[in-house]
């Protein structure tokens, strides 16, 4: 079939070239419309449900909100797990679905179950909402607003009613998370003293306010002629009007709302705060939709912001539209990758011209690059895969390789044409081109398939790594496959078109080859004369390389140079927003002093529907840098870390944005040993966890045993005294209502101003919502008119309460983690299991689960081993098909440690850290190395089997000399194409590919040297080529048959 394809391409060369050109044009068109992103969607398929339950404690949220939701959502089709977190005022459920499910269908299933659930939730709890489906990288832009002229309430209203809706209408925007500012309310701030003075209860005020506010329709009247809608106007809409509402009328004495309360516009109790460069303000995070394009959304958002700029300026509002712009990273990455393509392409061209010494052959080889890459891109885009850094990475590492097949083909055709030109009676160009193509066909095909096959395990990686690197693998495999097709079709066609003119072909070899060949021949002869010493030396060299491997460190991803850092700080739970902002201000001040830091901003607490659900003790900072190289960014990072480490009272972490998002995706504890204890009773769980921790501590090898109790937070416990309540004739609900109204506020209606609607809320003034004594002294009015203080009917004390209650699969859990040092994990696990079961008594409703990163890793490692083994077997079968000798296949495999050594040295020289990218580098390297070995060994086979040469030193040297150009050119081309990224890897867009490129270059250097110098000696000593093989005869027959088909 392949021979038919080659024959067709040579025969209908014009058609092939036209089709190729057409594909290039179509590719360019598709590319111009393609979306650009940073990373592929690496997050698992999750649906997050948030339910605001203002005023409830963690335990109340768990029982009243989380539990009913979990019960309703259990058992959904495709649901892998449910995790939940109940924190004060908020319930968060994270439903993880299997990767194979459709996220839109998952969301529909969830929303169907959520319908009708509202009735089962207590009054005051808001409707459970699904957090908008957002892209894995989430934030598309962070914007800030500050003003000297407008207060935080005005700024927030502007965001809520004007800017926010406009930004939400930009295509691809999933949500806007608003931090800081003050949500505007019309508050009826009751004065407890006045209530006592006028003998009023909170409930009476609330009732009066409820009667006075609210917007509702009044229906219509209809007569035989007309229908007239009724519109009620004149309801109190302003503070002044509301203050005039009558609460009580006693004869001529009239008591107004304004007599017992201050009615004014005031901020709602907040769940977060924000500052831009230490100035209090509003921070907006624009969240991108799932699968949406970051760059396009950014441009849309910027266009929308531009509409506001003039107005904001006139109003004295400063718009900080550059706090964080992930698109910068995409753009600089693209510029860097473009640079790499130009420089790499230039170097490839230089090598081709130098080694082939013919501009036409160089051009023919070079056409494989755009054709293969464009073909891969077209397929990827049709598969619905966006162009992102991983796709570009796959294409970048394929860059040097896609040209290889074409080079091998072109070089061979060119060599054969050259030889043909030297003949007294040259054969037709068509024959020569076809024969030369077919000569290398099998090795090219097998080698390419091997290169693709070694990548297959990468596609089967699980978790985030799988989702991240799958597009890279797909892009790479597609590009290599496309290059194979190009080598089989376009290359012979172009060779025929461009090299047909015999006058252009010199019968002399290129000068570099002329110079290299004898030199290489002499060296090889010398090396071959001392085979034992050579092999021993190589063995030691390889052993050293393998020995270094365990010394290398490991990381998931290298440091990404996004020009932006995100700082997290957490203080002791219970820290107020004010204190968090104060600490943040001090940190921002110091960070802003670091040279190269362009802007800083902070948010504390959380936003409604925000991804982060931390309390007010938690802050996040956006630190944006001026454009600078990787080293500069690392310096800034080091200085930020120094500042944070010295700062008291906080735990902090600094990450680049994408590392941060990936970290957030990899949830759960990363300790190797994790014991989860499930049960119903929180206290019992705590006790059992402590017992398990004690047992664990006692086991040899346990290090850093930690009871991962969610942190406690200070609470003011109000324990109602039922006897006192009965004595005073009060009910618990009356007291709770008063408390809720006083400190959480009760919404009694709405008022509108233009198109803006604000809540009318009854609450006590902010200054009376600050100290425990305010709560103690809160006046309570009994039904009979007795005026009491809260402390008369309740015991009030400060206690430590649970800040968060975690569930996994709808069960409460408590976790103990440990590291293991000085012994193997398996025996540690076995002993732990045995001793926990022996020494800790579990009741029927409490049970432990032994898990941990080690177990999870072992499972995924097992998967990887199975897939790699399968791919390995397939590679061996292909090798056997290519070489037809088990012995030769074994010898070819020697090249793997050759390449490993160079790769390991490259890792050591660069940063000494192995990441998943490095693994990809090694996999690529093994493929390329095997290809080179196949080229050499199959040529030996060709010489012995086809040309009938004797298998001896001379044949070995001749074969090696003849293959020298193609091996050297492909190695050099691949290495040089990678060089720009490898040399400058610590820069945007090159961080992941850089280490891969360095490994490939290092491995190629070592494997090429050893392949050229050692493999011939090894083959000479141990290799065997059988001239009588039936298969060869079959091939010959096939060849002659296809040649006859040529015109």
């Amino acid at each position, binding site marked *: 079939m392949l021979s038919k394809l080659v024959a067709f391409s040579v025969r209908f060369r014009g058609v092939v070239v036209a089709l190729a050109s057409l594909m290039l044009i179509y590719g360019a068109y598709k590319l111009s419309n393609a979306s650009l992103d940073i990373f592929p969607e690496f997050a698992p398929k999750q649906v997050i449900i948030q339910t605001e339950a203002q005023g409830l404690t963690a335990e109340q949220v768990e029982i009243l909100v989380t539990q009913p939701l979990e019960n309703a959502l259990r058992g959904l089709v495709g649901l892998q797990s449910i995790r939940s977190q109940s924190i004060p005022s908020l319930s968060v459920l994270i439903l993880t679905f299997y990767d194979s499910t459709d996220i839109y269908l998952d969301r529909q299933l969830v929303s169907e179950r959520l319908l009708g659930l509202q009735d089962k939730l207590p009054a005051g709890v808001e409707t459970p909402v699904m957090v908008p489906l957002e892209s894995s990288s989430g934030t598309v832009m962070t914007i800030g607003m500050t003003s000297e002229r407008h207060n935080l309430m005005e700024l927030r209203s502007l965001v809520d009613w004007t800017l926010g809706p406009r930004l939400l209408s930009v295509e691809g925007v999933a949500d806007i998370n608003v931090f800081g500012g003050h949500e505007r309310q019309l508050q009826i701030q009751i004065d407890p003293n006045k209530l006592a003075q006028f003998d009023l209860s909170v409930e009476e005020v609330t009732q009066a306010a409820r009667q006075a506010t609210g917007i509702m329709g009044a229906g219509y009247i209809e007569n035989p002629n007309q229908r007239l809608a009724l519109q009620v106007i004149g309801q109190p809409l302003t503070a002044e009007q509301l203050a005039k509402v009558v609460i009580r009328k006693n004869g001529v004495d009239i008591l107004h709302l304004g007599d017992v309360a201050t009615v004014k516009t005031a901020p709602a109790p907040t769940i977060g705060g924000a500052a831009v460069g230490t100035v209090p303000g509003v921070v907006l995070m624009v969240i991108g939709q799932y699968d949406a394009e970051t760059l396009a959304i950014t441009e849309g958002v910027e266009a929308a912001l531009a509409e506001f700029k003039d107005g904001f300026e006139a109003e004295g509002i400063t718009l900080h539209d550059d706090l964080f712009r992930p698109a910068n990273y995409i753009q600089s990455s693209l510029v860097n990758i473009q640079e790499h393509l130009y420089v790499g392409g230039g170097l490839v061209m230089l090598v081709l011209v130098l080694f082939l010494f013919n501009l036409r052959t160089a051009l023919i080889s070079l056409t494989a690059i755009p054709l293969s890459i464009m073909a891969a891109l077209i397929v990827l885009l049709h598969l619905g895969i966006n162009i992102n850094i991983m796709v570009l990475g796959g294409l970048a590492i394929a860059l040097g390789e896609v040209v290889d097949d074409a080079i091998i083909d072109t070089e061979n055709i060119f060599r054969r044409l050259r030889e043909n030109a030297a003949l007294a009676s040259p054969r037709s160009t068509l024959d020569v081109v076809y024969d030369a193509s077919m000569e290398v066909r099998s090795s090219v095909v097998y080698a390419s398939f091997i290169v693709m096959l070694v990548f297959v395990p990468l596609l089967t990686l699980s978790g985030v790594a799988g989702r991240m690197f799958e597009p890279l693998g797909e892009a790479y495999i597609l590009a290599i496959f496309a290059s194979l097709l190009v080598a089989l079709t376009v290359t012979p066609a172009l060779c025929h078109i461009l090299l047909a003119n015999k006058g252009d072909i010199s019968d002399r070899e290129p000068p570099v080859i002329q110079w290299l060949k004898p030199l290489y021949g002499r060296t090889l002869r010398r090396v071959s004369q001392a085979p034992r010493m050579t092999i021993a030396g190589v063995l030691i060299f390889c052993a050293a390389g393998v020995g270094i491997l365990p010394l290398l460190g490991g990381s998931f991803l290298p440091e990404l140079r996004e020009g932006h850092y995100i700082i997290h700080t*957490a203080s002791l739970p219970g820290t107020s927003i004010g204190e968090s902002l104060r600490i943040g201000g001090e940190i921002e001040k110091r960070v802003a002093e670091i040279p190269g830091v362009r802007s800083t901003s902070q948010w504390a607490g959380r936003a409604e529907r925000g991804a982060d659900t931390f309390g007010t003790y938690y802050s996040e900072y956006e630190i944006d840098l001026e454009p600078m190289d990787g080293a500069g960014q690392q310096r800034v990072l080091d200085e930020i870390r120094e500042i944070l480490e010295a700062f008291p009272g906080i735990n902090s972490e600094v990450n680049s944005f994408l590392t941060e998002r990936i970290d957030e995706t990899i949830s759960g504890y990363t300790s190797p040993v994790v014991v989860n204890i499930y049960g119903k009773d929180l206290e019992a769980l705590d006790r059992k966890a402590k017992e398990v921790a004690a047992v664990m501590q006692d086991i040899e090898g346990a290090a850093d045993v930690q009871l991962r109790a969610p942190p406690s937070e200070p609470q003011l416990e109000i324990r109602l005294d039922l006897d006192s309540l009965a004595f005073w004739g009060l009910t618990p609900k009356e007291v709770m209502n008063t408390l809720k109204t006083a400190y959480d506020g009760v919404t009694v209606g709405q008022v509108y101003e233009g198109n803006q609607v604000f809540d009318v809320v009854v609450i006590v003034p902010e200054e009376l919502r600050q100290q425990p004594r305010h709560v103690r002294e809160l006046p309570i009015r009994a039904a009979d008119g007795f005026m009491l203080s809260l402390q008369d009917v309740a015991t009030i004390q400060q206690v430590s309460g649970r800040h968060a209650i975690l569930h996994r699969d709808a069960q409460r859990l408590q976790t103990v983690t440990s590291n293991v040092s000085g012994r193997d994990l398996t025996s540690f696990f076995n002993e732990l299991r045995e001793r926990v079961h022996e020494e800790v008594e579990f009741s029927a409703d409490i049970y432990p689960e032994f898990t941990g990163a080690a177990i999870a890793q072992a499972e995924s490692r097992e998967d990887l081993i199975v897939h790699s083994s399968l791919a390995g077997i397939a590679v061996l079968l292909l090798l056997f098909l290519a070489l037809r000798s088990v012995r030769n296949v074994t010898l070819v495999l020697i090249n793997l440690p050759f390449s490993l050594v160079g790769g390991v040295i490259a890792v050591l020289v660069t940063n000494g850290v192995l990441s998943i990218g490095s693994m990809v580098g090694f996999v690529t390297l093994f493929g390329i190395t095997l290809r080179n070995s196949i080229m050499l060994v199959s040529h030996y086979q060709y010489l012995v089997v086809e040309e009938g040469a004797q298998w001896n030193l001379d044949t070995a040297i001749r074969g090696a000399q003849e293959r020298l150009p193609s091996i050297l050119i492909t190695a050099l081309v691949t290495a040089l194409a990678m060089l720009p990224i490898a040399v400058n890897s610590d820069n945007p867009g090159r961080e992941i590919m850089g280490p891969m490129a360095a490994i490939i270059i290092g491995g190629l250097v070592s494997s090429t040297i050893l392949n050229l110098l050692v493999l011939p000696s090894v083959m000479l000593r141990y290799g065997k080529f059988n001239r009588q093989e039936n298969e060869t005869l079959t091939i010959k027959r096939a060849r002659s048959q296809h040649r006859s088909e040529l015109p």
Partner: protein
Amino acid sequence: MASRNKFSLWLTLAVLLVVAFGVPLATDKSWSSLIDAGVERYLDAAERASQIGEEEEDDGERENGQPMRVEINDEVKNSAGIELMNLQQDIYYPESRAYASVVDVRDLIQWRTRLKQLELELELAQMEEKAQLQELNRLRKLAEATGSIASKNINYAESNWQQARAKREAAELTLEAARTELIQSWGAVIASWVTDPDSKEFERLVTRQDTLIQITLPVALSLPADVNVIRVSRQGQRENARKAYFVSPAFVANYAAQGETYYFKMATGKLRLGMRLHAWIPRNAEGLKGFFIPERAIVWYSGKPWTYVQQDEQVYRRRPLDDGESVTGGIFIQSEFEEGESLVVAGSQMLLSEEFRWQILDEDDD
């Protein structure tokens, strides 16, 4: 000899290779991580040793075996925004809060009128009695002297006198009962103002120069014996409160609260009848010496209020405030502190976080 040397060289190489590959394989850890772990352990041990030394030197107060102190150097202190205040001794008059209401004095006027009427009635009865007695005596004398008076007339006169006396005694009794009732209702002091026609106090009340207020103490509280002056405010604001002077205990309980009640008077006529007021009752006549800790310096932890005091340049110590008195704007405490000590007034929560840093949520804990 040479072959033995060669053998030992190979053996050494083999052992080195076994160690180089064997250890990482057996421990499932790379060399670098093993070295790192060793260094880490050494540094931890060194740090613990240094901490043990420090703890031994530290003779301060402990909570669950932990010293209640934080160490922060001066540079960090400035960058972290910690602010200090010098503690100054203060005098504090501890007070209890109570409700008060303006008393309707019309009842007193009615009382005075009623008493006056009763007094007049008594006077009339007395005069009647006196007249009847004189008549009786005259008739008796005439009868004795002239014998011209019929005994029937004498008996009649005596009967009249007896009636008049009974009337007088009834009027006296009524007056006395009214006075007792007045005292029962208003107390002896106010009753004396009512009964005393020259009472200046009554005069001032009636002419609204003074206002009588009734204080109702919280249920569990009594008025200290030596307290004569309290402060009262209409707005519930202590700073605007005015003086009120003790009058007497009240015998009528407040309908709306069930504590002890007392009458006080205020030199103002601006208060209106039925007004509800707030009162602050000193618990001691003499002020207490101690320190005022402002609210912004206070943090709550483990069921108690605390504050931080700078012990030396780098050490901040946590002090309990649970013995103190919760007052407007802070806590007043007599013990634990000394004049001139540096109180942390900004950054207390940060210091608490630093002290309990191990309780802060790890980024890993999600």
